[in-house]
């Protein structure tokens, strides 16, 4: 055997982790006393939004966001790429999530790839500080999994500006957003893919109507947006006209966690999920003791522990090209599929272990963990459906990683 290493991480990473961990402990906001959203999919009230925005600003001001982004655009140009350390520590501390998820994780990285210098200078810093919130206009009532069939029109005006007419759905955070990443058709006569363009659309123009959609949990925060000849300047275009599908695919890579470059966020697999489920099991009374003593539940908890650890190991292994040489992008491309399905099983298990109490809902004082588990289970479908359904992701994996014939 080779001799054990002194530590599991290089010293400068470990030191930084200690620093961030201490900061989180000292600055993590206390329970505000009102219901907080579980994720960015259900930010309803102004006070929820303000609370979360203030938290992100605080993390940014401490210097813990945009670490991996260039300094000239408000980032910190960190040579060691330590943003992921912050992400892991945010999760570990059980801190509130960073509300500008779409800006930090999807729009920002896409702008860094395709944006002009002016666009980067204008857009990126306010994403980090949460001064400007972003939403995403991709899906439409008739274009879900078949995203490239999107019909929203961006019609070019004689002065080079555009007018948008159409209907976007599942627009999380649209009611708080200053900007939208928008996929719209600039050339209805071109092919399905070639007719699309990608825009950085200002939400505060006339002709934009944001209407709430209510999720199965009864929570809002989810919207549809209707555009009626809404104006947008020429420089709203990201990349070239007709390049929209290519740019959107880049965004989707970030959205699915398949590419690195996030300005900040929470780590998915961390060991926290299973720890919390064990805590539920200990408290869940069953006929012959607690769920923690039930062999069936113990088996399922062990299985989830295995899956959670497999995801954690994926994040390590995907950084080592020689250990992924046979299927170079498989771990990245399967990450969202595996995490979302694992998380769905985890929340489902917690509900089931709770027995009759697992059927209690928000507002019932005796509901365990304020009915967090049935709520989380329902909300977990946001992850298995949003950003490409599990079914679409299986197509992508089959075709791009395994070379199976295209379904479409």
């Amino acid at each position, binding site marked *: *055997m*080779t001799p*054990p*290493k002194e530590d*599991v*991480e290089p010293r400068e990473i470990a030191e930084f982790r200690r620093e961030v961990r201490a900061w989180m402990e000292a600055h993590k906001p206390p329970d505000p006393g009102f219901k907080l959203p579980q994720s960015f999919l259900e930010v309803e009230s102004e006070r929820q939004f303000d609370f979360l925005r203030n938290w992100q600003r605080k993390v940014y001001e401490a210097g813990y966001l945009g670490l991996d982004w260039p300094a000239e655009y408000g980032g910190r140009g960190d040579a060691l790429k330590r943003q992921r350390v912050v992400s*892991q520590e945010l999760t*570990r501390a059980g801190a509130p999530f960073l509300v500008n998820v779409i800006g930090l994780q999807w729009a920002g990285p896409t702008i860094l790839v395709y944006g002009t210098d002016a666009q980067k200078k204008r857009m990126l810093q306010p994403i980090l500080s949460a001064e400007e919130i972003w939403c995403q206009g991709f899906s439409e009532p008739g274009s879900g999994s078949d995203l490239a069939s999107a019909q929203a029109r961006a019609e070019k005006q004689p002065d080079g500006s555009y007018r948008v007419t159409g209907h976007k759905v599942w627009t999380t955070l649209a009611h708080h957003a200053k900007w939208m990443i928008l996929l719209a058709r600039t050339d209805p006569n071109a092919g399905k893919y070639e007719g699309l363009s990608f825009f950085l659309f200002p939400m505060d123009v006339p002709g934009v109507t944001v209407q709430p959609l209510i999720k199965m949990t009864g929570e809002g925060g989810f919207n549809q947006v209707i555009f009626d000849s809404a104006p947008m300047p020429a420089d709203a275009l990201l990349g070239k006209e007709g390049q929209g599908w290519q740019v959107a695919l880049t965004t989707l890579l970030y959205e699915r966690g398949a590419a690195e470059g996030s300005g900040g966020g929470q780590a998915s697999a*961390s*060991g926290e999920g*299973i*720890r919390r489920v*064990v805590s539920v*099991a*200990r408290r869940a009374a069953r006929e012959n003791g607690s769920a*923690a003593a039930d*062999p069936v539940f*113990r*088996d399922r*908890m*062990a*299985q989830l*522990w*295995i*899956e959670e*650890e*497999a*995801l954690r*190991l*994926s994040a*390590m*292994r995907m*950084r*080592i090209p*020689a*250990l992924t040489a*046979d*299927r170079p992008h*498989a*771990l990245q491309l*399967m990450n969202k*599929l*595996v995490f979302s399905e694992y998380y769905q099983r985890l929340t489902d298990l917690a509900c089931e272990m709770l027995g009759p109490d697992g059927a209690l809902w928000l507002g019932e004082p005796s509901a365990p963990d304020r009915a967090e588990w049935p709520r989380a289970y329902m909300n977990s479908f946001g992850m298995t459906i949003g950003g490409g359904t599990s*079914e679409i992701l*299986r*197509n992508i*994996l*089959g075709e791009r*990683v*395994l*070379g*199976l*014939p*295209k*379904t479409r």
Partner: protein
Amino acid sequence: MRQIPIDFGFREEHDLLRKEARRFLGERCPMSEVRRLADDPLGHDPTLWKEIGGLGWLGVALPEAYGGAGLGSVALCLLLDEMGRRLVPSPFLASLLASFAIDAGGSESQKALWLPEIASGTRIATLALTEPSGGFEPDSVRATASPCEGGFVLRGQKTHVQDARNAGLVVAPFREPSGQVSIFAIELPSPGVVIEAEVGVDPTRRSARVAFEGTRVGASARLEAPGAAALEHAHVRGFAALAAEMVGAADATLELTRQYAIDRKQFGHPIGFFQAVKHPIVDVMVGVELARNHALGAAAAIDHADPCKAESASRMAKAMASDVFSLAVRKGVQLHGGYGFTIDCDVHHYFKRALWSRATLGDAPHHRHRLAAMLVDRDVLASGAP
């Protein structure tokens, strides 16, 4: 709690070994050879065995002082992944497991006596763990070792002993009158050791029942270190090793199925066009890659992390590999259709290996049972994940 290093302790030379193994086995152990050896009375090719011994593969993770290469468990993991792909019929795993027990429990002189011979392949060895009760963990040892003039008398049955009929050394745990478990290394053939071949489901893995009927051994046959702890360490390395081999075999099954889904046409399309075929193949691929994460994680934990982490990691690896290999062969046969159901289709070799592998050294429910005890009763996560 000492964790797994973020780079798994992986080094470039580990990858050279993997590439070399892939090339060598591609030439020396094609499927035609596996089919031939499946029907061979000996069950392996002594020439190939000699070559493998010469390549030093048996000693990859053994200390250099005892004829090993000292490359560590990650290198071994990559090597076994390649060997699993090719279903190499050989006493490799049996010898490896025996070497783990001697490495963990032997004194300097015991290690010096046995390990170089095992590492070079000149002596085939095996580790006899399972007893008629079905148990194989240290707490289920019922075979006994009674002290006698100049040594011990061994009594008891061991079952499912790999390659016992080819082995020149059997390593096995016995319980002493004090109740403590000790590991013994017994040269074969030996009077009082009766070996009877078992008919196994996988003809590329040969096993036997080994009866110790009052076998007399010298005092030096008893490994020096306390047996239970040494056995646990050997187990952990064994779980990780077998898991790595299973991942490779599952991946090869996946590859056969993937290729068939491209080549076979029905309704005017390659069958892989249909999502009812495509999606299960993807599920196998996802499982294989996650199981490979665990195989690597277990190897890295054995070399770098503390024993508790190494135990949970290797049990996870064996549990996940067992489930994933089973899924791979189940889908493999099914998606090959009528052809998959025949002896002409190579998938059945993998199917049989999967049945053997998951039943050996603990199946997924067994390891999840032990993991749940660590997770819920011992609360190992409370000490802090990274």
